[in-house]
């Protein structure tokens, strides 16, 4: 068996919703896949008209091409692996409950929204609301792990409930906004209003971060839990691997005191 590979034939005229793909793979024969009806904006279109298919292992799915206009890639993924060779659109891995999703390029907004379990790896940059909540939902990502080797946009980890978002680059404004729990790490700083409305959880930032007055400075400490977290990320390689090499004292800023106020921004160098 070889990886089931879907290669985009040509640039899409509008935004394509790919969320029907994984349910179809579970319920239909592979031969029927080209006839699967998808929607581009308001138009129905067959999958076979957009992608060429090769391979037969649906547990090892590969999407190739510039999929920056393809939304909800990997929505509801429950197991196996899905790799995108290129960019991806919005709502990547929405509501995933398992498996591993990898994108080599950039992803648009709301990647890992409502993630439950599994891992999402993004080789490039992530858009706004990474690991955030779906519109109307009270909780964002509630488990699993997201690794971004580039930067992440604004409101990273918005309403996040559990799990970890690890960003090798920087975070945009309002990082960790309205967080309920979980861990967000950035290795190259964060933008304005970090931790805005944060109730619990940890926002760990190496480098510059603008902290609002609603966070209380609780001093610099060498915390065993930080070392424990760093060690758990060693296997990720790159910038993440070296974190555990030395004890890194953290500046503990507790807040957001305008909300529940039991979250923390941990600054380190």
């Amino acid at each position, binding site marked *: 068996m070889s990886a089931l590979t879907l290669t985009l034939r040509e640039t899409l005229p509008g935004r394509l919703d790919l969320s029907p793909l994984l349910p179809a793979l579970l319920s239909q024969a592979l031969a029927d896949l080209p006839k699967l009806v998808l929607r581009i904006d308001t138009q129905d279109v067959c999958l076979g008209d957009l992608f060429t298919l090769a391979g037969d292992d649906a547990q090892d799915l590969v999407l190739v091409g510039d999929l920056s206009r393809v939304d909800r890639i990997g929505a509801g993924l429950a197991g196996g692996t899905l790799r995108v060779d290129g960019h991806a659109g919005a709502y990547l891995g929405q509501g995933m409950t398992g498996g591993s999703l990898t994108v080599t390029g950039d992803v648009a907004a709301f990647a890992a929204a409502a993630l439950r379990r599994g891992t999402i790896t993004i080789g490039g940059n992530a858009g706004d609301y990474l690991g955030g909540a779906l519109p109307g939902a009270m909780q964002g990502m509630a488990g699993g792990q997201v690794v971004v080797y580039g930067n992440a946009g604004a409101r990273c980890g918005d309403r996040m409930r*559990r*799990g970890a978002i690890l960003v090798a680059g920087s975070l945009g404004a309002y990082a960790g906004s309205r967080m309920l729990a979980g*861990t967000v790490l950035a290795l190259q700083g964060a933008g304005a209003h970090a931790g805005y409305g944060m109730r*619990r959880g*940890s926002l760990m930032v190496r480098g510059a971060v603008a902290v609002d007055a609603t966070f209380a400075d609780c001093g610099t*400490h*060498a*915390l*065993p*839990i930080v*070392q*424990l*977290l760093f*060690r*758990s990320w060693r296997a990720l390689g790159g910038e993440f691997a070296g974190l*555990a090499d030395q004890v890194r004292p953290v500046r503990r800023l507790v807040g957001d005191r305008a909300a529940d106020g*039991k979250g923390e921004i941990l600054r380190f160098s």
Partner: protein
Amino acid sequence: MIVNGVAVQDTFAEAFGMRGTRLIVTGENLKWAYHGATALTGFATSVIACGVEAGIERKLDPAETPDGRPGASVLMFATSSKELTAQVERRVGQTILTCPTASCFGGLSAGDPIALGKNLRYFGDGWQASKVVDGRRFWRVPVMDGEFVCEETTRMVRAVGGGNFLILTTDSAAALAAAEAAIESMRRVPNVIMPFPGGVVRSGSKVGSRYKTLPASTNDAFCPTLRGVVKTELPPEAGCCLEIVIDGLTAEDIRVAMRVGMQAVCARGREKGVIALSAGNYGGKLGQFHFPLRGILEDTAAPPAAPSAGGAA
């Protein structure tokens, strides 16, 4: 059976099913990790009155612990899951929570979860926070030196307690030297502890006594000062007897520890005052596990200790 002049008696050790767990204690340095681990395993020689039998299994390098600090692995055994659960919580709460810089983690990857920091976290009075790392939940409790980090649960497995052998020697000095040699070798065996002081016990017991309130009393058959007035088990030249008691995660672990220990004793031989090896049992009717001394010593081709229910950390 005579090994290097030491008579290995045709008898067996009788052991019992217990519940056991492994805890990892870490600290800023080995000194403070051991302060915690030593207190945690203090007054834990026998389930008769201590509630639990516990000991330090071995030193752990920073690379082996969850938080990358030096540590010690501790084994604890009790007669019931209820007692073990109560003792783990009470002891960790009084000795590791209190020990400067110390953290506590579960050390088994299989078994039933029992509370470790699950209830101790309330010491944080609302300031406690948890982190789930690789599927394991850790509690952070603010304390006066920073944070007490404690895993939510540890794993409890079915284990074996009460493996033992008796060292019969000409005098006290020879017995101590032989027992120390045995313990030194046995400490290298994984998944076992010898819970008595220095790993050695002098007050071996028999079932029953002449007092109706006392269910166990001194093992007079091995008491040298009574040799003329009781039915003694001591050879004429024996002037001292010491016992080594072993608790292990599996029967095979105990077998390996007994073999290693008895070999160390026999290596000292008759010229260093070792006369015989014997074992404590209750006629074979009380314990589920029997460890025949001769069988264990002869079984040199036996496989090494079976992997325990999970490695350290």
